């Protein structure tokens, strides 16, 4: 009996599915070793197929996507029950990723923007909000509920392992799959619950080939403001680079392409909050001891919160921005 594999996408972009398929010929080995029993993106299985399975029947489930709706949450709980090993695959499931940026707003703001205020709405459509339950003569229509806060997978179910990245790099996915096959074939012990797989245990700076000197930053530059030197550390040059507060494992792709790391592999080991750590890192290199000047230098960063929590907002200590009612806190 082949071990059973499931892949599911909750609130996601589909990039993780592409990353899996990008393992190219390795996908044939995966399909050969595993019996793929659920993969909505690529194969025609239905939810009722999963509901009909016994608990723990699925050997391995790679769950990508954040938890935005009641449907996402239902599938997270269903797949947790039916899977022996549940992996939070990719940044969305691990830490919220881009869908997690919706936590800068709330359901009301998002719905108002999309269904009332958007300039691309026809007049007759403005103010028509989705309703979870509609009764029609032919029958009842149900759509999922839209939760107010985006959650990571481990905020709704117990997660066994995490594979970070937006998306996880294909060579790392191959590493993870080979390790899993090794465990299943040769009876090797499973790593401790909560282990981060397919990534390193240092920061992105370790993998970066650029030359680092002492940092004294008087101004932060946005990517369009000047041409980066290809050999010097980007942060040294004043470009925003999340490298110091990001886990290694991607082989420093972005910095090798002359753009600062965005932080998609999540926080380094033993770091609870990626944004807070970046504040700490940058505070060490800002070249000023005058509060007013310090504020001005920080002011050259366009959107500190959005930049430092681009991937990890949902998983951060505060999870979300506090929405003010009537301008009060």
């Amino acid at each position, binding site marked *: 009996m082949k071990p059973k594999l499931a892949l599911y996408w909750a609130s996601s972009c589909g990039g993780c599915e592409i990353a899996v398929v990008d393992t190219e010929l390795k996908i044939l080995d995966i399909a050969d070793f595993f019996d793929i029993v659920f993969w909505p993106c690529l194969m025609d299985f239905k939810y009722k197929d999963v509901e009909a399975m016994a608990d723990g029947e699925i050997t391995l489930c790679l769950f990508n996507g954040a938890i935005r709706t009641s449907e996402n949450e239902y599938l997270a709980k269903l797949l947790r029950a039916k899977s022996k090993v549940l992996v939070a695959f990719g940044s969305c499931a691990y830490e919220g990723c881009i869908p997690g940026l919706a936590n800068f707003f709330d359901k009301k703001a998002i719905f108002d923007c999309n269904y009332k205020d958007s300039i691309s709405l026809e007049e007759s459509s403005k103010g028509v909000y989705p309703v979870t339950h509609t009764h029609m003569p032919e029958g009842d229509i149900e759509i999922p509920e839209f939760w107010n*806060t985006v959650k990571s997978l481990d905020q709704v179910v117990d997660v066994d392992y995490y594979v970070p990245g937006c998306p996880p790099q294909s060579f790392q996915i191959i590493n993870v799959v080979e390790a899993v096959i090794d465990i299943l074939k040769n009876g090797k012990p499973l790593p401790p619950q909560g282990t981060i797989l397919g990534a390193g245990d240092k920061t992105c700076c370790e993998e970066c080939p650029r030359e680092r000197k002492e940092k004294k930053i008087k101004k932060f530059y946005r990517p369009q403001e000047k041409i980066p030197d290809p050999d010097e550390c980007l942060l040294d040059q004043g470009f925003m680079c999340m490298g110091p507060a990001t886990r290694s494992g991607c082989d420093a792709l972005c910095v090798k392409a002359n753009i600062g790391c965005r932080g998609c592999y999540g926080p380094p080991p033993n*770091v*609870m*909050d990626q*944004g*807070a*750590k970046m*504040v*700490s890192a*940058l*505070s*060490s290199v*800002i070249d*000023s*001891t005058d*509060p007013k000047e*310090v*504020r001005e230098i*920080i002011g050259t960063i366009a*959107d*500190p*919160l959005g930049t430092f929590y681009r991937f990890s907002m949902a998983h*951060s*200590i*505060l*999870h*979300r*921005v*506090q*929405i*003010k009612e009537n301008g009060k*806190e």
Partner: protein
Amino acid sequence: MAEEKKQNGWDPKIAAFLCNWCTYTGADLAGVSRLKSSPCVRIIRVMCSGRVDPTFILQAFKKGADGVFIGGCHIGDCHYSEGNYKTLRRIEFLKIFLEQFGIDPNRLRLEWISASEGDKYAETTLAFEKQIRELGPLKLQV
């Protein structure tokens, strides 16, 4: 003071990170001098205000602090030379963060209080308590 206490049964919880060499000793001096300082302050002693990781501050708010107070040596007098410069920058940064997070940045306060300034410790903690009472409890939406 007595009337201000127990407004609607609530007292502010203020987490304070005080540096060992200056502010903590200043707080101690306030104590032996019998000066009245805020009873709402829960002190955590650190060796240097530069030890205060922004994570601690966010975690303090998450765990129920209505205000966070950081006390360090005066600029130029840090026991470890440069620690408080980093604190200064981190707190400036964090205030911008808190504003973006929708939390009033006045809930985070940085003061330079030396070992001989027991009276300043007493005054500033009482003033901070009053400010937090005005701001009210921090109820975080999750």
